[in-house]
C-alpha cells in the first residue's frame, strides 16, 4: 500500500497545501488502491474517476497559481449513496431509485467541494438507511475490511468500509439511530453523529426527519473535527439547521480531561454478555480517569425502552417520507393501465423487505385506532428518555457506554429483524434526544475485530465532545499494546 494512504486527512491536506504531495497523486493512489480492494470489500456503488481526477488537478493548479486552498484540499472523500452529488446517481441502494441522477448537490457535498475535497464516489447502505449491517442493500453486499466474512455494520456500511480499507480518507454517512456510529465501531473508525441540526440535511434523502443527521467517518478525531468544521452551520435550504455559530473544532481539541465528569451506566458494563467489549470500554474509562476525568455513576432508566420508541417513531416518520416514491417524478415505474395501480405495483416491486416492514409498521402506528397506543405513547416515552439525559448531564459532561453489544458479526448471522434492531440499543437513545455522539476505537478483541466506545454530550456540545474524545484517542494510540495504528490486511 502506498505510504500516502496511511496519512490521515489533516496531514494529507497539510502536505497538499505545502506542495509536498499533489492532490492528483493522492487521488490516483486512492483510486489504484481501491481498484484492488473493491472486489473484496464492495464499499462503493458508483465511482466518478474522471470527476475526481479533474477536481484533484484543479486543486494542484490553484496551488501552483498561489490561490488559497480549502481546509480539505486534495483529500479524497466518499459519500453515502443517499446524499446527492450533482450529476451522479443517488440510489439509496434501492431498486425504486434505479436510474435516478441527482439534479443538485446536497449542502454537505457543496461545502466539501468548496473546502477542496475530491469526491470519489457513492457508497453502499442498507436500503434507505434502514438496517444495521448493510445487508439490506438491494444492490450489493459490502464486507468488513477487518474480516470479509463479516458485515461492516449499517446503515452507512459502505462509508465505513471504504475508510477502513483506505479507499477514502474521509467519508460521510447519515445517522438516524446509530447508522454512523455502529459501522464505525465495527470497522475501527471514528464515526460522528453531530447534534441534531448541526449539519444541513438538504440533499439527504429523508428517512426519519426528527432523527436524521449527516456526519463524518475518519481515522482520527482531528479529521472528524475538520470535516465537521467545513460542513456544519446554518443552511438557508434546511429549516432544521441551527443558527448556532460553528466553532473552530480542530483548534479546540484537548490533551487532557482535567475537570471533566464522565457519566457511566454501571449496568451496561456489568450486564454486557460480551465481556471483551465491556472490558475494553472499562479500560478506556479508566484511562479517562488517569487523564484527569472524574467518573460519575449515572442512571438512564428509560433508555432501556429506546429501541421500542425508535422503531415506532422512525418507522412512522419513514412511512410519511417514503410516500414520495410513487413512480411519477423519478425512479422506477411499473407500467399499469391505471395510475393508482401503477402506484401500488411500483412500490410493491421497488421496495425491499425491510423498507416494506418499516413502512407497514409506521403506517400501522399512525393509523386510526392505533395512533395513541403506538405513536402517541412512543413520543411520550421519548420525552422521558430526554429527561433522563437532562438529569444525567446535570451531573456529568459526557457519557461513556459501549457502542455496540458485540463486534462485527458474520454476514447472514442475523436473519431475524428484531435481533438486528437490538444492535442499536446503545446508540438509539442519543438519537432520540438529539445529542452529539460518536464511536471511538478503543481496541481489538481476541479475534482481531475492532471495538468502539460510545461517547455522547448534550446537543451543541460538539466541541467539548470532540475535545474529550481527542484526549482519550491520543492516550490510547500511545499504548503500543492496543495496536490502534493497525490497518486491515486485504
Amino acid at each position: 500500500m502506498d505510504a500516502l494512504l496511511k496519512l490521515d486527512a489533516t496531514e494529507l491536506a497539510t502536505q497538499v497545501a505545502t506542495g509536498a504531495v499533489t492532490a492528483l497523486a493522492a487521488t490516483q493512489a486512492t483510486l489504484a488502491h481501491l481498484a484492488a480492494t473493491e472486489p473484496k470489500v464492495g464499499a462503493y456503488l458508483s465511482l466518478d474517476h474522471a470527476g475526481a481526477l479533474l477536481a484533484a488537478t484543479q486543486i494542484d493548479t490553484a496551488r501552483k497559481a498561489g490561490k488559497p486552498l480549502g481546509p480539505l484540499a486534495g483529500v479524497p472523500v466518499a459519500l453515502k449513496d443517499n446524499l446527492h452529488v450533482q450529476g451522479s446517481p443517488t440510489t439509496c441502494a434501492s431498486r425504486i431509485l434505479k436510474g435516478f441522477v441527482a439534479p443538485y448537490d446536497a449542502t454537505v457535498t457543496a461545502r466539501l467541494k468548496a473546502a477542496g475535497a475530491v469526491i470519489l464516489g457513492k457508497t453502499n447502505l442498507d436500503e434507505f438507511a434502514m438496517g444495521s449491517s448493510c445487508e439490506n442493500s438491494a444492490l450489493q453486499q459490502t464486507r468488513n475490511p477487518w474480516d470479509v466474512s463479516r458485515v461492516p455494520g449499517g446503515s452507512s456500511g459502505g462509508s465505513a468500509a471504504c475508510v477502513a480499507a483506505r479507499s477514502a480518507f474521509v467519508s460521510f454517512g447519515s445517522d438516524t439511530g446509530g447508522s454512523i456510529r455502529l459501522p464505525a465501531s465495527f470497522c475501527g473508525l471514528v464515526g460522528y453523529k453531530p447534534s441534531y441540526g448541526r449539519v444541513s440535511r438538504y440533499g439527504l434523502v429523508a428517512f426519519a426527519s426528527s432523527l436524521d443527521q449527516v456526519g463524518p467517518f475518519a481515522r482520527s478525531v482531528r479529521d472528524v473535527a475538520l470535516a465537521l468544521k467545513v460542513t456544519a452551520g446554518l443552511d438557508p435550504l434546511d429549516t432544521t439547521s441551527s443558527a448556532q455559530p460553528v466553532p473552530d473544532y480542530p483548534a479546540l481539541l484537548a490533551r487532557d480531561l482535567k475537570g471533566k465528569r464522565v457519566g457511566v451506566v454501571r449496568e451496561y458494563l456489568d450486564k454486557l454478555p460480551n465481556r471483551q467489549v465491556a472490558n475494553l470500554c472499562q479500560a478506556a474509562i479508566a484511562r479517562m480517569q488517569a487523564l484527569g476525568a472524574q467518573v460519575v455513576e449515572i442512571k438512564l432508566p428509560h433508555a432501556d425502552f429506546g429501541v421500542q420508541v425508535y422503531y415506532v417513531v422512525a418507522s412512522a416518520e419513514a412511512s410519511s417520507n417514503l410516500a414520495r416514491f410513487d413512480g411519477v417524478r423519478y425512479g422506477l415505474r411499473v407500467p399499469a393501465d391505471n395510475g393508482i395501480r401503477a402506484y401500488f405495483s411500483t412500490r410493491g416491486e421497488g421496495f425491499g423487505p425491510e423498507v416494506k416492514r418499516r413502512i407497514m409498521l409506521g403506517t400501522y402506528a399512525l393509523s386510526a385506532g392505533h395512533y395513541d397506543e403506538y405513536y402517541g405513547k412512543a413520543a411520550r416515552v421519548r420525552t422521558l428518555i430526554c429527561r433522563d439525559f437532562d438529569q444525567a448531564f446535570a451531573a456529568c459532561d459526557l457519557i461513556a457506554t459501549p457502542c455496540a453489544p458485540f463486534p462485527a458479526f458474520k454476514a447472514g448471522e442475523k436473519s431475524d429483524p428484531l435481533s438486528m434492531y437490538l444492535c442499536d440499543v446503545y446508540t438509539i437513545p442519543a438519537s432520540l434526544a438529539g445529542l452529539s455522539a460518536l464511536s471511538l476505537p478503543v481496541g481489538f478483541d481476541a479475534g482481531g475485530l475492532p471495538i468502539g466506545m460510545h461517547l455522547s454530550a448534550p446537543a451543541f456540545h460538539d466541541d467539548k465532545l470532540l475535545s474529550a474524545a481527542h484526549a482519550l484517542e491520543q492516550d490510547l494510540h500511545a499504548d503500543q499494546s492496543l495496536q490502534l495504528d493497525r490497518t486491515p490486511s486485504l
Partner: protein
Amino acid sequence: MDLTTVKQVAKLARLNLTEEEAARLAADMIRITEHIEQLGKVEVKGVEATIHPVATRNQWRPDQIAPSLPRETATGNAPESEQNFFKVPPVIE
C-alpha cells in the same frame, strides 16, 4: 395484528404485497409489535409528547426570488414526461 390487518395496512401504505410477503410480514409484525408493547409498562400520565428533539425554531430563509432548477432538469428523472410536465397513466376511470 393478523393477516387481515396486514392487508388493510398495505392498502393504506399503497404497497402491493404477494400472499407470501403478506404472511411473512404478519409473522414479523406480530413479534415486533409485541416487543413494542413493552412500552405499556411505562407510566406517561401528564407527560408531553416529544415530536422534535431540540427546542429550536424553524430557520426561515428570506422570501426572495432566486434561481431554481430549470423545468427540464426537474422533470429529467421522470419515467415519462411531455413538454416538461410529468406524465402519468389515467387515474380516473
